[in-house]
């Protein structure tokens, strides 16, 4: 019965073949084949998920001897179900959305092969299958983004995506070669067993295999999940059809987190890789959020929002919270997919009437008007700092009593605390006739969100990593020197608290800081050019092409 996992990528491939062959005779009705294929895939994935929940043993099955093997494990079936669900919704949405577009049948063929590749990627149990799926996702995405072949800009931005993906694939290819050189196997279960038996095995130049391979895989994950410096493709890929944007932001871009989770047994044995994974994720989360705030185009803002979320997801892996990253990517995928799929009708309604009440909230958020203060600043300052900390730590402590032994968990709680405090800080700045009622509502919402997040993420942890020692060991691998960690955490916390207190005080006493405003303007100028990253790439690629042309002329085109 578990062998049915092999059917998961086969159904969409059959659907793609049938759609291609029958598209001329069936016309627009050909999309039904794709929808039926998607429904069957989703039904099968859900059944397999149910089986895993019923404690069927983890296994892997193969089409061939060397490659073509798929996992039947919690990560594979959970992610297959999510992918099947999202791609089914995208197909149903596209039936009418794409009805007047050129290449209707081709679009559904591409959607089918894309979902087959995605399923193959999340379930791959050997390096060759993983490489095949990883590579094909980039190729199919290129054609999905460039579906409107008359549009130069759609293809130009699709090209950025393709090139980033292709060059991002290469470290994974090298990782596969290093693993094969070392363990003489492509099979992931065999590789993980060999690493567990001998974690200190070395490769070329005496480097530890786990460090080299862990780093290479992380780089591939960064390119796929739009981490800083390889992020430029993401915000500009809005020229593709909306269903593709939804699929990309809800599913494809999450591949980095899935890849890191698949290699969790390898990262368990690393010393320093997770530290810089954390750092890259942190930088991406911060920069993505800053760039999102600076956008006037809502689609680009959504793109940068995804970048920030991907940064947070990678950061979660970097602190050892691998299962939390999966929960995060699923939650993000669902809400971002909804945003994209509803974007068309929202824009349509907004053309008739923007529907935004010009009330106090509008003035505060959109017009950025300073408002009258209704709360005593000292009371709010204390509430801002203490309440989120109390809610977060008590809820997490109830679920995992050994919380303070995990540095990664403390870092994530720290972020939760900053976010919660920022919400309360924003409440402080709002003008309202019922300030304490508003505050109570905000706090209740915060408690509900934190409790939900805590318990659901705990459930994910138990589901994906039932071996608690393994899950704990991941936090240990991501940890650092305790004294250094404590010093850094306390210093940053004090800095943030001091900044908040200063801001409260300044807001209450109407202080205008000319120097800060000057720096802010300069900073905005850099942010508005997106830190010049795209400019640098553009010049570099043009320089390379010019050099190639000069070489051809010099060699007389021979």
């Amino acid at each position: 019965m578990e062998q049915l996992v092999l059917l998961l990528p086969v159904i969409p491939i059959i659907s793609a073949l049938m759609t291609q062959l029958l598209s001329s005779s069936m016309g627009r009705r050909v999309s039904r084949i794709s929808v039926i294929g998607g429904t069957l895939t989703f039904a099968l994935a859900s059944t397999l998920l149910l089986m895993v929940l019923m404690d069927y043993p983890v296994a892997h099955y193969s089409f061939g001897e060397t490659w073509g093997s798929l996992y039947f494990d919690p990560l594979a079936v959970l992610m297959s179900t999510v992918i099947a669900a999202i791609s089914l919704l995208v197909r149903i949405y596209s039936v009418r959305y794409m009805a007047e577009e050129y290449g209707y049948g081709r679009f559904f063929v591409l959607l089918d092969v894309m979902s087959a590749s995605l399923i193959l990627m999340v379930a791959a149990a050997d390096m060759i299958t993983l490489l095949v799926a990883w590579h094909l996702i980039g190729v199919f995405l290129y054609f999905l983004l460039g579906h409107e072949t008359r549009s130069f800009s759609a293809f130009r931005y699709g090209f950025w995506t393709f090139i980033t993906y292709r060059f991002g694939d290469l470290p994974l290819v090298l990782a596969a070669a290093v693993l094969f050189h070392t363990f003489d196997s492509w099979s992931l279960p065999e590789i993980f067993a060999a690493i567990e038996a001998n974690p200190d095995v070395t490769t070329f130049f005496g480097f530890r295999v786990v460090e080299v391979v862990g780093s290479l895989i992380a780089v591939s994950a960064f390119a796929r999940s739009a981490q800083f410096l390889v992020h430029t493709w993401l915000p500009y890929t809005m020229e593709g059809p909306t269903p593709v944007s939804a699929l990309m932001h809800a599913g494809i871009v999450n591949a980095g987190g899935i890849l890191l989770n698949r290699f969790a047994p390898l990262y368990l044995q690393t010393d320093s890789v997770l530290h810089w994974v954390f750092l890259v994720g942190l930088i991406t989360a911060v920069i993505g959020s800053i760039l999102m705030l600076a956008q006037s185009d809502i689609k680009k803002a959504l793109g940068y929002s995804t970048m920030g979320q991907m940064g947070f997801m990678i950061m979660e892996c970097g602190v050892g919270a691998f299962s939390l990253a999966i929960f995060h990517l699923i939650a993000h995928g669902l809400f971002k997919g909804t945003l994209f799929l509803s974007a068309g009708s929202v824009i349509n309604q907004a053309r008739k009437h923007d529907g935004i009440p010009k009330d106090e909230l509008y003035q505060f958020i959109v017009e950025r008007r300073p408002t009258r203060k209704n709360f005593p600043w000292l009371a709010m300052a204390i509430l801002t700092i203490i309440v989120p900390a109390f809610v977060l730590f008590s809820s997490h402590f109830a679920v995992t009593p050994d919380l303070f032994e995990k540095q990664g968990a403390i870092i994530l709680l720290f972020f939760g605390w900053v976010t919660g405090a920022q919400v309360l800080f924003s409440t402080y700045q709002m003008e309202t006739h019922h300030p304490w009622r508003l505050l109570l509502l905000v706090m209740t919402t915060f408690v509900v969100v934190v409790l939900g997040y805590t318990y659901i993420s705990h459930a994910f942890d138990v589901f994906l990593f039932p071996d608690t020692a393994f899950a704990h060991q991941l936090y240990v691998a991501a940890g650092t020197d305790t004294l250094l960690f404590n010093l850094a955490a306390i210093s940053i916390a004090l800095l943030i608290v001091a900044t908040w207190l200063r801001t409260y005080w300044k807001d209450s006493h109407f202080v205008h800081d000319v120097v800060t405003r000057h720096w802010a303007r300069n900073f905005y100028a850099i942010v508005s050019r997106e830190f010049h990253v795209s400019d640098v790439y553009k010049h570099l690629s043009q320089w390379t092409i010019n050099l190639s042309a000069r070489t051809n002329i010099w060699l007389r085109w021979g």
Partner: protein
Amino acid sequence: MVTLGLSMEWHWLLIGLFFPLFPLSIGFNALLNAAKAPWLKVILLLIWPQIGIALIIQHQATIPEWLQYWGLLSSGLYAFRMLAMREVNIWIGYLATSSWALLWILAFDQLSEHQLQIFAFGFSLPLAIMALISGEIAKRYGAAYTGLYGGLAIANPRLTGVLVVSVFAAIATPIFPTFFAMLHTLVLSQPLPSIWLVMIWGTWSWCAARLLQGLIVGPANLPYPRDLSVGMTWAMSLLLGALAILGLIYTGNLS
């Protein structure tokens, strides 16, 4: 050992014409350009590396290591030169040179004659199909030149479909045999050459995307030239399909 009356070095250089090493590769590219008829290009693309394999088998000597590095450098040079190349036929010649030069690595590690032939054929067949398509484009538009007219996807969808698949098959995209050939070459390489090798692989993709964008994207001018015939489309699609199946079945003993 049969040496055709040549010294060892001269024999390797002779093979270097067929597993093209720069500057010997200039000969092959000149020959390909001189062949005006598409069918002649097809024959040349299919036969050329097979002659090299036959010569290696005949020679029966251990290939010197330096030839591998020469092959890698030649392959990198031609991949780099493809970036600015806009004439489709010359582009095909450059990709053929870049990919066949890598066969030195496989030959050095004494892959069987049979495996070498299949990998060389895997590289040649998509290029041969591209050469046919290039001829069809030249017939319709006067020249097969990227960035000149565009809009092929709108005007000639069948022609575009075959062109796109054959380009991706040629640049070692899964599940074509070229992908497994590249994987095999990578596994046999040393660490630094393997980094060079994956850069070549990535550059092929860059070149392919530039080539396709200059041909298929954009609005097309009316009247549209007639598309590839249905029979020809089926024939080429079946060939590419068979190649993909060959890739799935025959992975070149990667285990």
